[in-house]
């Protein structure tokens, strides 16, 4: 087995597994925001803004995984 094989495997695993948690997290954030908007439609704009902030924080974890995958693919 060549090192390249492991490199590709590791990059795929890094982003694949790293996207699992943030995916679930973003789902939970959107669930909360949508039920909040459903109960109180007038607060929609404020809820949406905060939802985007929450999503961005959850997504940051996936970005770290993406960084690891990119470093594995293009740098190491």
């Amino acid at each position, binding site marked *: 087995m*060549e*090192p*390249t094989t492991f490199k590709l495997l590791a990059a795929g695993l890094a982003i694949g597994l790293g996207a699992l948690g943030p995916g679930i997290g973003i789902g939970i954030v959107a669930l909360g925001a949508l039920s909040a908007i459903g109960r109180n439609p007038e607060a929609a*704009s*404020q809820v949406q*803004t905060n939802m*985007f*902030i929450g*999503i*961005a924080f959850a*997504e*940051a974890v996936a*970005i*770290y995984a*993406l*960084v690891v995958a*990119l470093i594995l693919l*293009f*740098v*190491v």
Partner: protein
Amino acid sequence: MSRKLKFLLAAIGALALMMLGNMFLRFHLPPVTVRAEPLPGLTIGNVRVTNSLVTALLVDVILVVLAIAATRRMQLVPSGLQNFMEFLVETLYNLTHSIAGSRWTPRFFAIVATIFFYVLVSNWFGLLPGLAAVGFCESHAELATLHQPTIWDRISEHATARLAAPLPAKGGKESTSGTHTYWGCQPGEIIVPLFRSPSTDLSSNLALALVSVGMTQVFGVTALGARYFTKFFNIAGMLRAFRPDEGGQRRGCAGMLGTFMFGGIEFFVSILEAVTEVAKLLSFSFRLFGNIFAGEVMLLVLASLMPLVLTLPFIGLELFVGLIQAFIFYVLTLAFFTIATVSHENQSSHS
């Protein structure tokens, strides 16, 4: 019946488009480079001008020209371009006001709105069709020499020396080099695009993130003075153990230890806060880079698989992603500004 006919016609049209695209618009997937490519023969002092720098300047020019054109003949009752721009700016201003409050909005707005419009235009600029095909022909070897050694190169040299696995092409990272000849180029040459969206260059995103995080500190100090930095190094809780408690009594040994432990936890949290401040740089720059770069690579891959048909809906998706990413950069910057201007002690005493 006519509904069925319409469906049939649409299916036939899609198939025809697919065949046309496959016949006339086939292309070989160009090498994907993570780093912005330096343009040949363009240097300022010791720095090679990259295509993303050129595009960043172009985006600036677009924004300035738009602003001048909208405000050239100001009218009390706006119409046309002035109306549109006023609508955009006003919407953004109201949103900023609802987050930051009336005291800080005038000071925050210029920075966060500039970030929003700059990131938005540079995200959308990279989606212009045919942008990747306009550029200079460069051979692989020349491209490798054009690159200045950077921290990435040093990391990769270090890593390859350890793994003893030679890289296929140092510097350019062309994974799919092959023997394909690009249109208008000599064999063995690849196209270095003249334009590249600044959002797909990590350096430009890092610069934006530095502005955002740096201004957060500036506004924090403006609002709270030197007290702002106790957020990052908070030993006040630990010192409290050696002072008399609220009733004016001296603390017993157990009380002192307990207060000291709680102070230790507060100190640890403040150190975490300082680490988060540095991690913000990373997440800001890589969030924008990752989203926009991945989107453009996806468009390229889809276009090389099935031109014309598959890419159209995804360009719509990428337009949306570009807008959302610009909005997230704006909202996060604004939220961090607002958090920095709120006193930490006030918050904890309220709760």
